[in-house]
């Protein structure tokens, strides 16, 4: 019980620390929100202009919504993924990594403690982005089921955390460019998952990768909830939810295990030190 309380306190310590950092870096947060919104608008306007570009009749409202969902998942995955990989990058940058790694807490607590703030942060960013971008288009959202949308993002978070912890191994091992390397993991996940297109348009050899990417199921679930108003307990939403649960159950322990191996390697080679 005492140990559980300790791990709970430690987990909250990461949440509180990250919240304090967010408050101190508020200007950077604004820049990041604006950047995401502008990015999302640039993509969404492609949908608005589809008729003009192709000189044919296109259901632009549907296309705008389709792309808007893609931008939301892109932002959500970016913010949560960055939150997870940054737990190593920022600590290495500030030089606090050794203090965190010698603290009497389990690595699971350390990693999960950092992740739940990333999820809350990502959810807030995505909702703000959806509201602001939505204001630029006169979209018919009367059929949208927002509860399903939030549920799908949260269900997807379990797997995203798993993949994020796996990607956090890169900044742990590669002291200078590891963080940038983790962008590749995120970008590949989105590419194979059909972020702005159905996966059927991908080359056949790439399509099986979509089946194991959690982002595929998050995107499909969001489209079902927002475009077709599917409720959480519907069979269609369940068909997207269970693969996310399975991926999460496998990816989190597996990633924590890989992280532990990487940590041992870093401790053998002296890579925990700030300057390598």
């Amino acid at each position: 019980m005492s140990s559980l309380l300790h791990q709970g306190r430690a987990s909250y310590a990461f949440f509180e620390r990250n919240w304090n950092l967010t408050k101190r870096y508020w200007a950077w947060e604004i820049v990041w929100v604006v950047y995401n919104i502008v990015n999302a608008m640039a993509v969404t306007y492609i949908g608005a202009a589809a008729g003009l570009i192709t000189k044919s009749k296109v259901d632009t409202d549907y296309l705008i919504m389709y792309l808007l969902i893609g931008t939301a998942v892109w932002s959500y995955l970016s913010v949560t993924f960055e939150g997870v990989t940054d737990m190593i990058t920022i600590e290495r940058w500030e030089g606090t990594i050794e203090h965190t790694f010698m603290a009497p807490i389990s690595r699971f607590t350390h990693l999960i403690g950092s992740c739940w703030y990333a999820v809350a942060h990502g959810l807030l960013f995505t909702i703000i982005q959806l509201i602001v971008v939505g204001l630029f288009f006169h979209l018919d959202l009367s059929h949208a089921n927002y509860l399903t949308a939030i549920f799908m993002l949260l269900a997807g978070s379990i797997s995203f955390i798993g993949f994020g912890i796996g990607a956090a191994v890169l900044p742990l091992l590669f002291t200078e460019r590891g963080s940038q390397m983790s962008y590749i993991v995120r970008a590949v996940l989105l590419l194979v998952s059909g972020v702005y297109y159905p996966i059927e348009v991908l080359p056949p050899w790439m399509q099986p990768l979509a089946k194991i990417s959690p982002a595929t199921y998050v995107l499909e679930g969001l489209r079902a909830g927002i475009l077709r108003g599917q409720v959480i307990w519907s069979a269609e939403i369940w068909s997207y939810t269970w693969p996310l649960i399975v991926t999460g159950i496998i990816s989190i322990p597996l990633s924590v295990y890989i992280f532990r191996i990487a940590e041992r390697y870093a401790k053998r080679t002296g890579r925990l030190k700030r300057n390598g």
Partner: protein
Amino acid sequence: MAIHNIESMQLIENIVLDASKDAVVIDGVSKIFKKSQPLVRLPWKEYKEVKREVHAVDNVTMTVKRREIMGILGANGSGKSTLIRMLSTLLIPDTGHLSIFGYDVVKDEAMVQKLINRVSVEASFFKKLSPMENLIYAARLYNMRGSEARAKIRSILSRLGIPEDRVGQPLENMSRGMQQKVAIARAFLTAPIVLLLDEPTTGLDPRSKIDVQAFVEELREVHDATILITTHDMDEAEALCDRVAIIDKGRIMAIGTVEELKLAVTERMERTTPVTMNEVFMHYTVAHQITDAEIERYGSWEKAFEALEAQKEDEQE
């Protein structure tokens, strides 16, 4: 026999320590760092050949008794910090064993982490956060309640001379000396049973040094703490340490009380008056490497020493 009178109870309440055992045992420990080579060598480019292996710690054996303050003296790059990092569970030794009150630093890592804390030479913090925010974060990792931690943080920072109005301000606006005091406060906050201090007073003014030294002694007296301190400051070593070990190129060159080492060097140098601690340090580290020709070349013994130190640092880069 269990050690009593330890206040960091929440963290170690279920741990029984055998006080008859040495607090720290370092047994035949070595650590070699291998430098990476470029993956691809361009034929038209010249590459400086560097030594691929650095013996940071070379077969070190020593023990520290419970409640002892042990000083480790050595020049830059002599292996002091590597030794402290290994005891802190941050580095795994290549050979040998390290233990804290019988708990192996590698095998019983989680247990050892509950018993120790460390102050590093560079004050490592989230610089945008305030001392209070940084220390609350550290306190929660060590299982302290928020309210208890806040009161303790204010008390320790006040004793270390950090003004009340700076406690909530970002650390980036503080001087290096002040930041180092906050780093020291972070380690004291958890009242560790074994405290590892890696050049804790480097960069502090003389008054602050005395404050920190008094705090270290108090930690030993009140909390039964065992302290391992690395330093360049011979006065500090003399004032604070029960015993000192002198380390050079990763090897322990001498170990004993200040008086024992002074006596040994005085006799070896066939001097009639006792040598100073500076002379003891020089004798066991670099003195034997400085020749008359080098003294003539650089103008004085001190300048030759500085040149030798700079050369050693270049070799390690």
